[in-house]
């Protein structure tokens, strides 16, 4: 199966940037350089490049289940420190000899139909992780992936809630109603399912006080709506304040399970970027942008807010002749 060119997706690009920023902040309080990074690099390795360049991590594992993409990935590894393994994440999690080395794990899932397996992998991961490990997971949060009933007399939302329950029923919180199975709310429903599962797996006992401390979540859409959660395993609650203090300046790191930041920046031309950026940063930017550039921002509130928050990370792609 061919992979889309992820690096040309501006919102994903910003999301990745927020993650690397978060890691670099964490680096001020924990020795993150000696962590090992485990991800799905495909054959483009965008996340690997950034994490190696900016965080200086030198032990990296990329999981690739497809034997053909695997060969292509091996050919394309940008650095020697990246080891590509031809294995599914399920096999790697249950079989790998994880030892005591700390990890940053990004399970960057794309397929909505396999969410049950994805949740179960994540559950299995919780029994292996060490304190200070960082877990990041991306799910497809496209509500239409839950299908459409054959029988038009059945309510669409009810049908979709039932489909979700067929897949991950044990983790769906009891107060989730079919009214929440909408484009806007479904990503939050998924985050709440994740929270329910994870909290059930980390039961505090005198022998094990570890828990998953949520750092931040993002929703973005370059085509399909995706939701990404990032958290860190802590030994107990004593270090929470230190971490919260370190992140004072990064507003998107809100330590909440179900309040994702929305990244929805429209595709901009170079000329637009140059002109808009000249107005930033400023307190009246929102007003100015909605007045002057209404032809750029279709959904004013979210797109303008999103751009003002993340303009520094917005990529510009150029065509280059080698």
């Amino acid at each position, binding site marked *: 199966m061919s992979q889309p060119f992820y690096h040309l997706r501006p919102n994903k690009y910003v999301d990745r940037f927020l993650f690397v920023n978060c890691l670099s902040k964490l680096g001020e309080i924990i020795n993150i350089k000696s962590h090992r990074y485990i991800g799905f690099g495909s054959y483009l390795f965008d996340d690997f490049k950034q994490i190696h360049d900016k965080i200086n991590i030198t032990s990296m594992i990329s999981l690739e289940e497809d034997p053909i993409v695997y060969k292509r990935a091996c050919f394309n590894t940008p650095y020697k420190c990246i080891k590509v393994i031809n294995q599914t994440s399920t096999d790697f999690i249950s079989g790998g000899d994880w*030892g005591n080395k700390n990890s940053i794990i990004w399970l960057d899932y794309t397929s909505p139909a396999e969410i049950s397996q994805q949740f*179960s992998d994540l559950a299995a991961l919780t029994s*292996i992780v060490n304190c200070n490990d960082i877990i990041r997971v991306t799910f497809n949060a496209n509500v239409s992936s839950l299908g459409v009933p054959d029988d038009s007399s059945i309510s669409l939302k009810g049908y979709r809630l039932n489909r979700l329950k067929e897949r991950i029923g044990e983790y769906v919180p009891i107060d989730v109603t079919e009214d929440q199975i909408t484009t806007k709310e479904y990503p939050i429903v998924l985050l709440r399912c994740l929270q329910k599962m994870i909290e059930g797996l980390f039961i505090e*006992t*005198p022998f*094990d006080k570890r828990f998953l401390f949520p750092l931040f979540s993002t929703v973005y859409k370059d085509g399909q709506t995706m939701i990404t959660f990032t958290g860190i395993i802590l030994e107990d609650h004593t270090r929470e304040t230190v971490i919260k203090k370190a992140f004072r300046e990064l507003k998107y790191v809100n330590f909440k399970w179900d309040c994702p930041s929305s990244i929805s920046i429209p595709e901009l031309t170079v000329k637009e970027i140059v002109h808009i950026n000249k107005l930033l940063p400023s307190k009246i930017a929102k007003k100015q942008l909605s007045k002057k550039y209404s032809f750029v921002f279709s959904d004013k509130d979210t797109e303008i807010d999103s751009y003002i928050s993340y303009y520094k990370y917005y990529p510009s792609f150029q065509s280059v002749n080698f």
Partner: protein
Amino acid sequence: MANNTANGQPTKEFFVEMLTRDIDLNDAILDLLDNCLDGVVRLSSSQKNKLEDSNFYKGYSAEINISNNKFSIKDNCGGIPRDIAENYAFRMGRVQETDTDHPTIGIYGIGMKRAIFKIGKAAVVHTKSSQEKYTVIIPSDWARSSDWTFPIEENSEKNTLTSDGTEIIISPLNSSISDLWKNASNLNAFVENLRKAIQESYSLIIQKGFCIKINGHKVEGNPVELLVKKGTDKEGVRPFVFTNQYGSVNVKLAIGFYAPMASDDDIDKMNESKRSSYDAGITVVCNDRVVLYNDKSSLTGWGIAGVPNYHNQFIGIKGIAVFESNNPKDLPMTTTKRGVDHSSAVYIAVKDKMCEGLKMFTNYTNQWKGRNEQERTYSTVAEKTSFDDLFSEKAQKEYGVTMRHEARGNTYRPALPKPKIEKPYRVIRFSKSIDDIKTVSIHLYGDVDEKITASMVGEKCFDAILDQSKNGG
């Protein structure tokens, strides 16, 4: 004159009624056996280490005799010292200061009394301990009187004990039980059932040398064995092994295969109830006593934390979790010793590890699905090995079981073989009438043969057509 206090004394009827109602008859009898074992532990703990001695119970025995009007159990496990009998052993509930430093099974001090009242109306407890020989009598009208003491008779003629030990004779039986046992086949069925319960619950103890007889027949143990690839090469079918110390509780855990994974035909047989999955699952042991036998539920991690629910394809998976403590109250077992206390902190921590181990083997099973022949080249070279050996010194030298010392305990994760495939496989499943399969089988193989399974017939058909397709035919 009016009293200025209200009477809060318990009634004996309430005690007897409440204690006996919540326990199964089998479990009550197992409680009596537990007392025998605790006797051995008290006698021998100073000389032998229960955790390490694989013959700890050798020379000790208990004999149970059951008839339609009498139940008796006789042991040679040391007897009840006189001061213990006078002050503690016959009280309803353990007295605080008697807390022991021994890895016993009994905790609450109600087992013997509960068993006696569950089974019958009256009993005599003969005991011989050191130079003393006496008998405690539980009269049939005890529950109706207001006196909480039991009479003791010295050197009764009926006390025939020759070595230090105890004999409990319960007669007459409670009417509900004697009515049931009047029928000889009912009695036989009960004895058979009890034998199985003992085999399950005491298999470790029997393995460690204890002898139990019911109506003259010895109960054999049912040792836990797992497949282990001998030698120290890294890859091979070996169990997941874990040990840790939680406060006073020492834990050993091993999960692996006891038999090669099931083929599709095996699974069909199980679905048709032709093969049983009785031997699969996880057994939990507290101070040698099995409290959960071959469990396949969420209590032992099935269906939670990313582990699939138990399903017939996992029939080869077996595990054992052993909890040991000198302070039995810290052990994760219920008062009936027939279940785990799943809110216990130790148990929660160990269950995490059970999930981790189970996941390795369910995943292995899923990986190899449809490639049984290839898989058997690995699982058939692994040998059945007693789980004890996995924790012994030779585990590292002879089986390559090298524990990693991790923050949450010492863990060995086997390097299980992985299928080598260039081209991914898919399982094909379909059903056809037995007659049609027979017809095709005769066509392909020339005859009906018991050994030719339906899936062999299906596969041969596929191969024939594949051949034709490749050769343009």
